[in-house]
């Protein structure tokens, strides 16, 4: 990436306003972590199941880190975009995280049978499901995925998951799965800068 392009991309990331249901933690936290992931990617599932719970408990809930989720469905994953669309529709009833948890938990099942809807239906109540299904059928519904993908591409993303840690307008990308025991000292070190 050319330096000037990288500069704009990083500025876009730093200045991007997170939508409320896709961000978690103190908006004024000193460290921001943007997570770009794909619901059908195994390494994203590992990050979601193994790393993020500790990150949320230790850093996000204590106000040190603002966590922002971004969808980056890869073209080779046939159901990833649909899953991301369901999750983003669910964010309109403030259930993005609940649906995300369920999608990652049941990844192997819906990856095989393509039935993402049943997973979502298992999380939402009937009224929420009705709203979300209406959004899914609405061609005008902006699921925000294109914006997330564009943001990721501008930041030079080459793989999922990717975490971009931002502190004092400096960004530090971590591509691929990373366990919390590696991420934690990295955050501590970055936060000292």
């Amino acid at each position, binding site marked *: 990436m050319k330096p000037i392009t990288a500069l704009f991309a990083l500025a876009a990331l730093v200045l991007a306003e997170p939508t409320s249901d896709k961000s978690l933690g103190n908006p004024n936290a000193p460290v921001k972590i943007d997570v770009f992931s794909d619901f059908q990617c195994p390494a994203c599932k*590992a990050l979601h199941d193994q790393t993020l719970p500790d990150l949320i408990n230790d850093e996000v809930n204590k106000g040190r880190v603002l966590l922002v989720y971004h969808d980056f469905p890869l073209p080779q994953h046939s159901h990833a975009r649909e899953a991301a669309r369901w999750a983003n529709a669910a964010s309109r009833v403030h259930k993005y995280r609940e649906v995300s948890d369920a999608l990652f938990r049941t990844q192997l099942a819906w990856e095989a049978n393509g039935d993402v809807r049943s997973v979502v239906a298992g999380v939402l109540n009937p009224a929420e499901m009705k709203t979300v299904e209406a959004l899914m059928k609405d061609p005008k519904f902006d699921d925000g995925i294109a914006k997330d993908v564009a943001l990721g591409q501008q930041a030079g993303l080459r*793989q999922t998951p990717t975490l971009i840690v931002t502190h004092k307008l400096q960004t530090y990308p971590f*591509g*691929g799965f*990373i366990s919390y*025991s*590696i*991420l934690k000292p990295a955050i501590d070190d970055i936060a000292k800068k």
Partner: protein
Amino acid sequence: MKIALLAGRIILGAVFLYAAYVKLHAPWYIFAASIDSYQMLPPWAVQLLARTLPWFELVLGLVMIAGYKLRWVALVSGLILLAFWVSMFRAFAKGLGIDCGCFGPGEQVSNLTLLRDGALVALALFLFWFSRPKLA
């Protein structure tokens, strides 16, 4: 053959020195994140490897260029490079699409990285084989 051995050990030694320099130049967790993304080792082993391997590569590069105990240094180098190749091949075959971490972040595991590492394994084996003591 002497010239080939000299050239081979300088090339391989320089590769190890460059790899060590890039890793030691960045905070240890950058290399740790690269190792971690292979999802092969427990976190304690990732930390241990991230903190020690660059120093080992540095020593290996220096003794390789110096030609000290060349046969055994070449053997150790070959085994390490083979371990890297197997790890990269596994990641490539599983479609992990991760950084190889060979010379810092930013280079994805690909046919090219596999070919390059394979060539270095071959070079290490060449040094091991042709630096053996000659029979009387």
